[in-house]
């Protein structure tokens, strides 16, 4: 008796939830695009670096002199005597084994070096995108609902000011401001604990987030205004739903679709800006490692950094697409993006 009742309520839950059989297939299709893209990107990364014509052996030796024997053994050790395509294959194997090879100068495992620094950049990009989206969406919805009021104008102007100011200026300004007014909290310096991690990252993330603030706020605002005026919003009000539900459940979900597209574009910008912000806040992220490695022609590190950043970019794009499918049934069921 007890069992049948549970079964009934289970099937009820399953019924009112979305059980579209095509969803998994679409995700699979999206993943089928993901991997070829990653492969193509890896080709570009690897071969474009070889175009520079710098001999890795010179990089390894630096100013030192070496005998033919030493040079030969170095070539042997780093597979440099093999054809380029074989070297590429070697690198692919290293990537898949997770080692990313050995760097030319310090002879350390690239994976270890990246492993220490990647969390900073990763955290920076993810936190800034999240912070930026949340703030921008909040401001956008607010100014759309309060359209043409003083509040709406204030938001527009404030957002514009923050975006027009160069980010390094805002970064330094914020840093001075915070160290003066909150002297007890260390916003920069070594990272020894999880707490440190967040207190070091929160401010740079915020500054990075400013990049996207203006445009995402604007897109949210105009999207929301269109949705609030739409026939379905009027119908939702007419059937007696409270304004709060009409705004967030009905209008916002529709307005969020183009916002998501814009945010995806800004992820790329956030990754490249992260390099800059890291140096201002002296954060030991991938940015510093990458610029240093480029200067010294340290290919394994450059390759690995670029590969990781690309992976990050493509993954976040993938996640955005999955959210897209979750939000928009037309993308999920009909299998097409509907531009709104």
């Amino acid at each position, binding site marked *: 008796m007890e069992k049948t009742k549970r079964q009934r309520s289970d099937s009820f839950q399953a019924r*009112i939830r979305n059980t579209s059989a095509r969803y998994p297939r679409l995700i699979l299709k999206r993943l089928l695009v993901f991997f070829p893209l990653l492969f193509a990107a890896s080709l570009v990364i690897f071969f474009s670096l070889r175009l520079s014509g710098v001999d890795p052996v010179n990089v390894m030796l630096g100013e030192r002199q070496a005998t033919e024997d030493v040079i030969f053994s170095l070539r042997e050790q780093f597979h440099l005597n093999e054809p380029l395509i074989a070297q590429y294959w070697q690198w692919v194997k290293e990537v898949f084994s997770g080692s990313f090879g050995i760097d030319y100068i310090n002879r350390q495992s690239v994976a270890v070096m990246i492993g220490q620094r990647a969390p900073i950049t990763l955290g920076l990009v993810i936190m800034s995108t999240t912070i930026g989206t949340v703030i921008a969406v909040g401001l956008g919805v607010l100014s759309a609902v309060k359209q043409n009021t003083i509040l709406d104008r204030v938001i527009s102007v404030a957002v514009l000011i923050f975006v027009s100011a160069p980010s390094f200026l805002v970064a330094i300004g914020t840093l001075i401001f915070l160290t003066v007014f909150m002297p007890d909290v260390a916003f920069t310096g070594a990272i020894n604990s999880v707490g440190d991690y967040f207190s070091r990252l929160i401010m740079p993330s915020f500054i990075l987030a400013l990049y996207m603030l203006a445009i995402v706020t604007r897109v949210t605002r105009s999207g929301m205004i269109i949705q609030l005026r*739409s*026939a379905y919003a009027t119908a*939702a009000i*007419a*059937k*007696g739903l409270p304004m709060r*539900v009409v705004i967030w459940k009905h209008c916002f*979900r529709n307005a969020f679709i183009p916002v998501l597209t814009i945010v995806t574009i800004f992820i790329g910008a956030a990754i490249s800006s992260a390099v800059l912000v890291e140096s201002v806040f002296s954060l030991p992220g991938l940015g510093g490692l990458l610029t240093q490695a480029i200067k010294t022609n340290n290919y394994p590190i450059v390759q690995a950094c670029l590969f990781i950043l690309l992976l990050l970019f493509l993954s976040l794009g993938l996640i955005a697409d999955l959210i897209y499918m979750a939000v928009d049934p037309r993308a999920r*069921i009909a299998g097409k993006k509907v531009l709104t």
Partner: protein
Amino acid sequence: MTVEFMTVRGIVYAVQGASLSLKQGEVLGIVGESGCGKSVMVKSILRLHREKHTRYGGQILIEGRDVLRLTQKEMGIVRGTDAGMVFQDPMISLNPIIKIGEQIAETLRIRKSMSKRLAYDESLRLLRQVGITPPEDRYLQYPFELSGGMLQRVMIAMAIALRPKILIADEATTALDVTIQAEILALLKRLRAERGMSLIVVTHDFGVVAEMCDSVCVMYAGEIVESGSVERIFASPAHPYTKALIDSVPRPGTHGDKLSSIPGMPPDLLSVHTGCAFYPRCSVAEKCCETERPELHSAGGAHIVRCERPIWKK
């Protein structure tokens, strides 16, 4: 009742001095060309215009309570329970990314504090009542998976979910093709009978009025120019505009004759007109019609007309 909109081009006098009443269970038709203020008037009943740019005047009483004096919060209770509304284009009046069942059930959950389970069952019942089968499957579908006629049925289910006393159908069949139109009208008729609701049918089609309504209001340029029982108005239309509208409906048996139409367009409501609004298009107009605003006259009983030279006088 008056409704005025503040726009960048000036004040639009959308509805002026319109007055109508509706008894319980009655079916009232509101007829007129596009831009005559029909929709504006019925939307005012639920105060669906943007408050910031709208100025209401007069009063709208539902069971003695004036909705124009209510706060937004009180309006939230009036909407759906005192009056429900079905809109013109069902394709865009439903949220494209929410399951149709959920769009019915959410109202029940929020307004009637029903549990998920109860709201689900009630929604299925409503879907069945408006003729959507099988409701369990349809419940899970999205608007883009259904046809226009089906969506209009869903809209009706949504509008009657809270058992409103009045159901307003604002050009509810205009966007649908003729056979579906007849089905929807039959559905509205049946629901009205089953639930004892009053019905307001806004249309530009006198055929719909003849089929559905007990009484009818004819609107022109934001004014009610004639109102009365359907039989009466069809038998002896008093206003030249009403007569012209009725004459422009194609009728069986008149094959070969040229269908009459009304020359010209309804006036721009940005300005207040002096004299009769219909004057420029009127076939029986006289000199005084240009300058003197016509008064409301009784044409016998509840039959009222706003014309100084009503047709029956000739």
